[in-house]
């Protein structure tokens, strides 16, 4: 489903963030991306959603070449990818419901459709009772669940999560991870960059370890590795 062929990324300031990466991810996989800060994990996710273009190599998603894609096609690629970040990226002035609905509004969805879909998704992430609250009045875990709800509301084929538990305490992180597992069981591919080694070790999923822009290890049902 995702294929990276000989991908290198050199930023404008000369930093070589990725160095000749080859990576294949099949549909329905749950893949952890681990490695120290600066290893190139975020860069790799940015290439997949075409926030950045590679300096060399090709990126394919569902048979589509992301690098050669026209600018005006990018929005439609992104609607197929749900994104979750460490800092939640919710709109502070919008309620939980409105934040999730926003992802649908952007696609031109009707009010009727929004009213039908959003409550279902909020129930799935366990926020049906907080639909009318503003992000500022939610706990970190609840904010991230809102972000997850927003990421899945358009039925994406892929979820890119960049350190989604980075701002959460261990217990909340585990709950969120269960939610991701749930979403993955329904068939959505997940690529998650993380530092949560205990979770990675316990989940027994595929682990891709990176260091200095290189993939140094790629194991089915692996562990976090480089510290323990």
């Amino acid at each position, binding site marked *: 489903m995702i294929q990276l062929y000989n991908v290198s990324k050199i930023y404008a300031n000369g930093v070589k963030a990725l160095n000749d990466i080859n990576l294949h991810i099949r549909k329905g996989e749950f893949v952890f991306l681990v490695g120290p800060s600066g290893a190139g994990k975020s860069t790799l996710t940015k290439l997949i*959603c075409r926030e950045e273009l590679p300096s060399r190599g090709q990126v394919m998603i569902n048979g589509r070449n992301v690098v050669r894609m026209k600018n*005006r096609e*990018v*929005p*439609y*690629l*992104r*609607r*197929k*990818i749900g*994104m979750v970040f460490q800092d939640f*990226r*919710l*709109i502070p002035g919008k309620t939980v419901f409105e934040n999730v609905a*926003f*992802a649908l*509004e*952007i*696609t*031109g*969805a*009707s*009010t009727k459709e*929004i009213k039908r879909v959003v409550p279902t998704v909020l129930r799935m992430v366990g926020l049906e009772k907080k639909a009318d609250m503003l992000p500022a009045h939610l706990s970190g875990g609840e904010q991230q669940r809102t972000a997850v709800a*927003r990421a899945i509301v*358009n039925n994406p084929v892929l979820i890119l999560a960049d350190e989604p538990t980075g701002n959460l305490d261990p217990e909340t992180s585990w709950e969120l991870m269960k939610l991701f597992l749930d979403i993955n069981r329904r068939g959505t591919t997940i690529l998650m960059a993380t530092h949560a080694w205990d979770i990675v070790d316990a989940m027994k999923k595929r682990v891709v370890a990176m260091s200095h822009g290189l993939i140094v290890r790629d194991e089915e049902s692996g562990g976090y590795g480089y510290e323990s």
Partner: protein
Amino acid sequence: MSLNTLRYYFREAATSIVRNSWLSIASVGTIIISLLILGGSLLLVLNVRHITSTVESSLEITVFLADGLEQEHLDRLEEEIKFVPGVARVQFVTKEQALEELKESFGERADVLSGLEEDNPLPNSYRVKTREARMVPDAAQQLAELDGVEQVRYGQGVVEKLLALTHWVRIWGTVLLVVLGAAAVFLIATTIRMSVFARRREIGIMKMLGATNLFVRMPFMLEGMIIGLVGGLVAVLIINFGYLSLLNKVIITLPFIQLVDDPVTLYRVLGGMLGLGFGIGAAGSAISLHRFLRV
């Protein structure tokens, strides 16, 4: 595009306008002033053109004759007048006709002139038309020298002065309009830039969620267009009511002046103002988005 999307565009545009209310008001104000200048100069130019065309068509030289001239003398005089350079038409007006016309111009108060028939003080005259307005002064001078002519009268330079006025109104109106219009475009561009800045985080989120360029830009485009239209609407109302009350006053106090009052012309002027307001708003938005929102 769904109804919901349209609603979203307008809601976001309105939110931005309110959030930047001071800049929005300044933009609207500048647009109003530029459009008032446009509308005002246009109406002035149109009116002067209208008045001069009516004055010009009645612009003639009246040649008053001495009393008691023989018919033979009159015939010769008419031939001589026709030979004066620039003269296009000559018409003899008897003192009785002249009195009749005077009475007509007095309208209801014509009775103040009653009794003059017995001892008509008005002289016989020739009404002389020239081919062009600028030929009037020279022709008048030559006519005054003819034998049997008592006095020569014409609308001393009124036309020329009016035409010179429109000339300057046109130049300064255009200069002011361009300067103020540019200021309005700049102000709107600044307003939109502030809106984009206030929403930069949101724009990032929108792009992450797969919003198209159109979707990201539309609220900002609308914001400028709404500001332009509001400014245009206010200016149109001011000009419309201001001009209507001017028309009413002129009809009462200066009945002989014919101002432009044809509704089609007026709607054209007002429509042009509204269109320009909209154009200024759209241009301001477009410039700002082009420079500050590369999506």
